[in-house]
């Protein structure tokens, strides 16, 4: 460890870092703009100036940019030097010459990096007396607002958008003090990662348009650490509330998971919490007054429950707490997953693999650090966007490492590394059904039917481990691809294989496992990552409940069935005919959910569940990392509460032994651990509810929160009694422990002098490193030395079947999500329903692009325009999955469909 002298005091710092990182990691307040921990240094803003001295004798020193100099043992620098300080203050004065000084009306005000640095450097008197330069603003779509006059030209936005995230339509234009950051013309930003501009931009140029619609200053938000609900990656988020409305979602740093960035679905998809479509009241159908109070509904439910055969259907988007409580209520044998047999089978396979311990499943950070990636069948751009962002980093970093092995340059020296590596890319093979925006950074791409993708996988596994079976009748193209890919994987030190469930193919999962295991046997640390479908798909799958098909079979002979359906719109997973058939066999249907949907329509009793923002819950992400999402606010409407609380109420109404403990989340997790040992560790996901620091709770509100009497100033100025939260150690006040909370309980990032999201630097062990005390989340499975069991059956090559179609889903980042489409902007970016056929199939059916086609499947008829897809293999019919109004299909099945031109 090199020692450097900062203002004559020695400090041990990490080798390979630059001086800015070293100073920030030591907790010093050194201002910066253009540097970003995830993107490195370019030396543009000149804000991070310090003095560097030649040796002990040198008293004059030289001003240098700390972000552009690496640490060297024995080096002497000064942060406090008068000339360096004066220069830093001057940089802000320069930046402010053209800044509009519009903080009072700026959304960034109060959480602005520019404000922080202005105060930090001490610039407070304006000497520039000339006219300011002004710019026009652009329309950038429904999610991001643009206010270019606030720009301080730090170049972070383009570096993030273009270099880091691979976006194409945001850039820098013009020169000298006219440089402009935006699109070449007005229009919707095309990158699904555009929302991070809001946090990357140190001032108010790019701001959150959804927040603007119900704006609140950052300091007036009530915040809690939450987990994103929109896919299986479980990105860590912070959600903020005021006056009973969820106002925004921002990134919550977790170095192992999402790092600094979210996707736009995660950031903006929160509006469902505020939706008009929320279920706000327990309902008992077919009563003159359907709305019922808590006690009335409980009384009624008791009559439906006692003496009936209870069936519970869990949910891949409900918390472990709720799923487990339902399982406890109905009994393990009566607890089912609300998903098809096929999907359950695939998910069980994944859980088996993980539980067997034969292979390592990487975190997103490990994927970033991979030096070769094979994506087998999963359209991660649409189903696991932040994973796609991580893979992009792997591709770039691998190329950078390759270049800097030849010409040594520190990794943080961003532009220099890019100039050196030019267009080099690390290895990525993207093998998917359809082309994706991802292909442009791929070394190998191939589009094929799922079985053929699996066959490619088995062929790769066979090359890696010739004792594995050879793929029969493999085409030359397949062998070529397999040879190239296996060579690259073999050369890599940390190869990662990614697959998932969205192709509805278990062969894919087996093939991916065989490759990873074969690589692992070659003594390298291969990673195998799975993408699941929902935020708690993994958690539910780990409970190993049976499929929907099984419940249908089981209720066929049972009488007096009361089904309790937990936060699950079955019509999204199961073809409508089957769901209808199931419901027709249930005598009573009790549904707990947050929003009205097709399933809730069927409920005899409908119970309003809390959303993630209104409750606590534990979710298990795709790497089997259990993570706690905390309650952001207590709904004023007391009828809305977490499903597990409702279910416990039902349980206690059935038994007399209930002691009230049943519904405490901490106790639930302990019970879960003892009932289902695969969950060992979930009780440690976050500190228990009685956790206190020096006797104090952790406040959800910052101490900058507007005075108490203004808390409910929209209604009254008398001070309300603070709400009591008995479920966690977070409090509903601005008082409490002001230091660093344990990482799973960080409700917001703030540090003295750092009001912007940049304050996260203070929470990290070193800049860009783990959070102090370790990143949140408990990984439930780890690799052991167990020997792998390879698969034996290899599917036949895919061939179209005359008169039949293989039905496959196409996922859309915007549109396929059940909840995110409640955000207007996201809905407006979602595609309209369509049907895709291959070019040949369209020609054979004499159909042209855009022709309206009638499709009859499962007894239903849909009329959608045709979208001819040149890359689609023949014989496959593609439908957009999960769009509002589109029901689930027999994905992966061969079906008879009549297509008719309307």
């Amino acid at each position, binding site marked *: 460890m090199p020692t450097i002298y900062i203002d004559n005091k020695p400090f041990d710092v990490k080798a390979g870092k630059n001086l800015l990182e070293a100073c920030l990691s030591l907790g010093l307040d050194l201002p910066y703009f253009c540097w970003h921990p995830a993107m490195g240094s*370019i*030396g*543009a*803003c*000149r*804000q991070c*100036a310090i003095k560097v001295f030649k040796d002990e004798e040198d008293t004059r020193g*030289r*001003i*240098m940019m700390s972000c*552009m100099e690496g640490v060297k043992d024995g080096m002497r620098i000064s942060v406090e030097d008068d000339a360096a300080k*004066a*220069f830093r203050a*001057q*940089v802000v004065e*320069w*930046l402010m*010459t*053209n800044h509009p000084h519009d903080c009072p009306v700026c959304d960034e005000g109060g959480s602005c990096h520019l404000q922080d640095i202005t105060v930090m450097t001490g610039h407070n008197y304006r*000497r*520039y007396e*000339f006219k300011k330069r002004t710019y026009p603003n652009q329309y950038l779509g429904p999610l991001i607002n643009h206010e270019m006059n606030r720009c*301080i*030209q730090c*170049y972070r936005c383009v570096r993030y958008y273009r270099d880091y995230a691979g976006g194409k339509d945001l850039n*820098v234009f*013009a*020169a*000298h*003090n*006219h*440089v402009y950051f935006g699109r070449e013309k007005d229009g919707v930003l095309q990158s699904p990662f555009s929302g991070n501009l809001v946090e990357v931009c140190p001032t108010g140029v790019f701001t959150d348009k959804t927040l603007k619609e119900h704006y609140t200053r950052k300091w007036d938000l009530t915040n809690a650490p939450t987990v994103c609900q929109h896919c299986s990656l479980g990105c860590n988020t912070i959600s903020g509330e005021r006056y009973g409305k969820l106002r925004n979602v921002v990134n919550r740093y977790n170095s192992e998971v999402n790092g600094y960035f979210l996707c736009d679905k995660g950031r903006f998809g929160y509006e469902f919490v505020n939706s008009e479509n929320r279920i706000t009241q327990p309902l008992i159908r077919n009563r003159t007054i359907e709305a019922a109070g808590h006690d009335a509904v409980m009384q009624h439910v008791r009559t439906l429950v006692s003496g009936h055969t209870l069936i519970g259907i869990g949910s891949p988007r409900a918390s472990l707490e709720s799923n487990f409580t339902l399982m406890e209520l109905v009994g393990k044998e009566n607890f089912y997953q609300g998903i098809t047999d096929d999907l359950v089978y695939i998910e069980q396979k994944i859980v088996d693999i993980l539980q067997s311990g034969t292979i390592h499943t990487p975190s997103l950070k490990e994927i970033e650090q991979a030096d070769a990636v094979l994506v087998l069948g999963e359209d991660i751009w649409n189903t696991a966007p932040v994973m796609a962002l991580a893979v992009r980093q792997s591709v770039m970093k691998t190329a950078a490492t390759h*270049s800097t092995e*030849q*010409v040594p*340059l520190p990794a943080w*020296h961003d*532009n*220099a590394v890019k*100039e*050196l*590596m*030019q267009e080099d890319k690390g290895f990525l093979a993207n093998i998917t059904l359809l082309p994706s925006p991802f292909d442009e950074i791929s070394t190998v791409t191939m589009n094929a039917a799922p079985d053929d993708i699996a066959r490619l996988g088995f062929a790769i596994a066979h090359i890696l481990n010739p004792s594995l079976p050879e793929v029969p009748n493999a085409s030359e193209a397949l062998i070529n691809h397999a040879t190239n890919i296996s060579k690259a994987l073999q050369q890599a030190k940390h190869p990662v294989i990614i697959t998932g469930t969205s192709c509805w193919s278990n062969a894919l999962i087996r093939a991916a496992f065989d490759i990873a295991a074969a690589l692992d046997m070659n003594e390298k640390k291969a990673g195998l990552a799975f993408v699941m479908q929902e935020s708690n798909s993994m958690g539910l799958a780990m409970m190993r409940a049976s499929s929907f098909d099984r419940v249908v079979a089981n209720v066929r002979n049972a009488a007096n069935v009361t089904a309790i359906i937990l936060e699950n719109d079955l019509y999204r997973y199961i073809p409508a005919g089957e769901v209808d058939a199931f419901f027709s066999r249930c005598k009573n249907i009790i549904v707990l959910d947050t929003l009205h949907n097709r399933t809730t329509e069927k409920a005899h009793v409908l119970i309003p569940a809390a959303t993630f923002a209104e409750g606590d819950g534990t979710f298990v992400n795709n790497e089997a990392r259990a993570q706690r999402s905390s309650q952001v606010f207590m709904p004023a409407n007391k009828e809305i509460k977490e499903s597990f609380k409702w279910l416990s109420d039902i349980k206690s109404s059935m038994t007399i032994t209930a002691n009230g403990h049943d519904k405490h989340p901490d106790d639930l997790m302990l019970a879960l651990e003892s009932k289902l040992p695969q969950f060992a560790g979930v009780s440690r996901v976050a500190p228990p509810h009685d956790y206190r620091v020096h006797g104090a709770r952790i406040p959800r509100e910052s101490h900058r929160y507007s005075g108490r009497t203004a808390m409910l100033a929209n209604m009254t100025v008398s001070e309300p009694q603070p709400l009591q939260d008995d479920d966690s150690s977070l409090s509903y006040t601005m008082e409490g422990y002001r230091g660093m909370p344990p990482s799973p309980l960080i409700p917001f990032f703030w540090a003295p002098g750092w009001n912007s999201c940049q304050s996260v630097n203070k929470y990290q062990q070193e800049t860009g490193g783990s959070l102090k005390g370790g990143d949140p989340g408990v990984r439930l499975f780890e690799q052991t030395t167990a020997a792998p069991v390879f698969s034996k059956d290899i599917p036949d090559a895919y061939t179209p079947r005359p008169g039949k179609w293989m039905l496959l889903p196409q996922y859309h980042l915007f549109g396929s999500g059940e909840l995110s489409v409640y955000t207007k902007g996201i809905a407006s970016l979602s595609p309209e329903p369509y049907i895709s056929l291959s070019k040949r199939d369209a020609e054979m059916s004499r159909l042209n692009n855009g022709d309206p086609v009638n499709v009859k499947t499962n007894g239903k008829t849909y009329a959608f325009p045709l979208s001819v897809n040149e890359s689609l293999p023949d014989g496959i019919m593609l439908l957009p999955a999960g769009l509002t109004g589109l029901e689930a299909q027999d994905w992966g099945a061969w079906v008879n469909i009549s297509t008719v031109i309307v």
Partner: protein
Amino acid sequence: MERPLTSNIHPNRPALTLKEYEMTGGYAALRKVCSGMSPAAVQKLVADSNLKGRGGAGFNTGIKWSFVPMGDDAPHPKYLICNADEMEPGTFKDRLLLEGNPHQLLEGMILAAYAIQAEVSYVFLRWAYHKAAEVIRKSIQEAYDAGYLGKDILGSGFHLDMHLHTGVGRYMCGEETALLNALEGKRATPRAKPPFPQISGLFGKPTIVNNVETLCCISHIVNNGADWFKGLSYSEDSGTKLYGVSGKVKRPGTWELPMGITMRELIEEHAGGMKDGVELRGVLPGGASTDFLTTQHLDIKLDYKSVAAAGSRLGTGTMIVMDSSTCPVGFVHNLQHFFAQESCGFCTPCREGLPWVEKILWSLEKGEGKPEDLELLQMHTQLLGPGNTFCALAPGAMEPLQSALKYFHDDFEKHIQHKKCPYD
């Protein structure tokens, strides 16, 4: 007095053709090198000659070449680039060489490329030099046809391709790393150094960028030796130098003279002294981004060290003379307007500081200045110094300003006191 670079150039005659150039002894140096001189020997010869880069910074050319990785393991292709951007206001020396004797430059480039074993070379020419573009394009073709370019040059096994790139206008393109970005089809913003272009340059490969005049010296050094080259000079910086004078002198122009002649000789003899009715007040000795010298400095030698000792830089060696009828404030304002416009906009001090300086100077010139303005100007000259900005543009811009504030302080004061420009 020997004038190796320009003795065959006659301003009113067309450029030397390949034939004509060969008749003056052209490409003999290339033949010499190709018949058995090693790249290392060429590098050493040029280093020994103490040829200093004529692009402004004055670094020993042979030593600069020696940082290029050599040998079979070196990254390929390597590049040799002639910097013919010449956009520094007041500078017009390279034009003479480009338009008058293009093959002299080409031969120098081929030799330089040989010395570093580059495979590809570019002439990066400023857009405005249409005539030069024409002759260079033609000359490159002639050189290919004669076997001086292309594969296996003169049987030496050395290959070199050469292309002409004409710019699209930005002073920044002259800065060698910004030039690389421009050649890569990017915005011409500068790159951080290190890594130096010799290690990671054009397309990430080892690259040398040399000025036109620098490269034009090479064939003569190879032909006549290092000692001869040193002997051309009146000072410790070797060779001849193209000096130029513009402004209100009797005979503005360019002359090749021994390095180290005095400024007095240059201005009074070669440029014929000041026009009638005006007196000399100040001189920017090496282009717009150098400090003023004044009448008290007339006897200094025009070499790198002496000009530096007098508080300025030899830069490009083309002087801009400021006479007694020209307002120093207006003069400096014009310069700052140029620099503010040509700032690339990458780093804060230059992007925001220069327009501020320009506006202050303009308000002074209009008679709207205040005493505090002089402090602000002074502050900028200090804070836009080397190291504080990303590249040398802004520090260069501050050189004439800081010396104007020193030598012509009265003029600034008068603008403030009289609330108008005394020269209007």
